[in-house]
């Protein structure tokens, strides 16, 4: 009896040490590319790409399960830099242009504060029973506020060009 206990304890010790050593010595890193791509993503975990967050999306992009253009908040600039990183050719001018921003219809807003609680970038300002407002510069067009709004008063409107952002459209085909 004592012999068996000693033997099993000894075996446990030896095997445990061996396993512990193997775990350290033969450690496999996660794909470093996933980490890099994930760093490039917006990091707002908005889920518009259909994945649970930015890291799962990065994994899918690296594995080729998702397009580099799948991230709406990242837009063309993210698509371009991802394509460059992964060595993929994409036609940038064929991408849909134009960013959309959440816009709160102040005539319908009741000041319930639900939208600004879900905003991942704190882009909505307001207070209880006060009309809320969206700061365009901080809006990633994730649409979470649209879903949260009980009054259905949030619309996604395209960005209005200003004198600073306007640029010449593409010339008609020659």
């Amino acid at each position, binding site marked *: 009896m004592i012999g068996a206990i000693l033997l099993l304890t000894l075996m446990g010790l030896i095997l445990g040490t061996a396993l512990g050593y193997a775990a350290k010595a033969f450690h496999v890193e996660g794909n470093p590319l996933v980490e890099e791509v994930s760093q490039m993503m*917006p990091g707002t975990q908005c889920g518009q790409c259909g994945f649970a967050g930015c890291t799962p999306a990065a994994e899918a992009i690296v594995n080729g399960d998702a397009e580099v253009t799948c991230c709406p908040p990242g837009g063309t600039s993210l698509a371009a830099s991802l394509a460059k990183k992964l060595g993929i050719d994409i036609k*940038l001018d064929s991408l849909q242009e134009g960013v959309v921003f959440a816009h709160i219809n102040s005539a319908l807003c009741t000041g319930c504060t639900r939208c600004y609680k879900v905003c*991942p970038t704190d882009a909505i300002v307001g207070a209880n029973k006060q009309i809320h407002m969206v700061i365009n510069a901080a809006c990633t067009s994730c649409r979470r506020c649209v879903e949260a709004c009980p009054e259905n008063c949030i619309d996604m409107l395209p960005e209005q060009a200003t*004198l600073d952002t306007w640029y010449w459209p593409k010339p008609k085909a020659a």
Partner: protein
Amino acid sequence: MAFFSPFRGGVHPDSFKELSATLPIMRLPIPPQLFVPLRQHAGSDAVAIVEPGSHVLKGQLIARAGNGLSAPVHAPTSGIVAAITPVTAAHPSGMKSNAIIIKPDRKDTPVKVPTLLDPFKLPRDELAQKIADAGIVGMGGASFPAAVKLSSAIDRHVETIVINGSECEPYLTADDRLMTERAEKIILGARLIRHVVGAQKIAIAIEDNKPNAISAMQKAAVGEQQLEIVVVPTRYPMGSAKQMIKAVTGHEVPAGGRSSDVGVLMHNVATAYAIAEALAESKPLTSRIVTVSGGAIVRPQNVEALIGTPARYLIEFCGGTVNTPTRLLLGGPMMGHVVQSLDVPLIKGVAGILALTDHEITNPQASPCIRCGRCVSACPMGLVPLEMANRSKHGDFDGANDYGLSDCILCGSCAYVCPSHIPLVHYFQYAKGHLNSQTAQSKRMQYTRQLAETRQERIDKAAAAKAAAKAAKANRRKRSPAKTEKSPQGES
């Protein structure tokens, strides 16, 4: 021929300067309404400091400089502020931007001018500040605030001040007439710029197709130390900084570099004139000389007009148009931009208002590139426009950039010589705009990423604090169970 040329590439467009070059500058009567835009310069909008209904005097500050790169705006004449509202901007998009609308009282009462001091005895930074306060911007077209350009050159060992009197754009003769009629003040302005920057030499460069301006400037420059009138050959784009510096000093500004990298600071003659007025007479920039010309104008001439004068009023002063002009341009025909409406107001950086007829413009259908290479020999920057355009067309903007898109000065020489009439400059405008918007987008993404991280941190902190509070409460309850039993409702 190329051996003797002052810089590589370039073109010789028909000048059409004879339309207005010999006529004296006329002063425009005060128009019934002035539309003074808050954006007349590179950078952010000026901020209006007057209210509708308030009375302003000529030269009074009506909008202070905005944040960052900006310039203030002054009232061009005395009158009542009628409104501050968006009007059609002098911009190719045809969009509106805010302007202060002034109803002149026709008395032209100026603000009180402080006692004038000899500007050469004042400290340099004070002079630079005065130039900034006078709202002076580059009047050759780029509208970059002059004081910023001067201050950034102060510590960069600038040796030569180049005053640009080349006026290489066809039709435009505003600088030509300014040099012919008001040479002394330009030279005073040039000396003041030299004094502010601490440079040694002044070179005033004039293209050889302006004999009157050359002789007037030479006469005014007699007896000046270290000041030279340089006659340069007529060749477009002589007026571009890099080409002008190459022609005058022989130095080439490195790609991505600035003129001060080769010890040069360049200003337009009209800017030098405005600086002289600001420092010697304490007059802010409220008027400019503008060429109103083109085949559709009845009496093409140069007009000294108040900033904010509607283009329509200027054209009416010149006899109106012969028939409906086919194209309206602000600036020259090479680099100016098309405007759709005559309602655009005159702004500080506009040297010409052109109304062109059908036979003055060519607008044939573009045909495919035949790779003849004419654009390559015309490009003054030594780029390959056909490759850049091809890449821009197919959305390969980084590829276009690798071919030197960022060095392109958008002078239009390539499009001018293209036998296939490909809108090359339009492609480059489009590609540059796209790259800029991409940069802006990724900047915004960095910002929102940071916002999301701060929010997450805050939520985590709040959750931790809540958990800690709960634990503390649980601890208290353990010690005194009797208390909790008294108020069971509070737990739910």
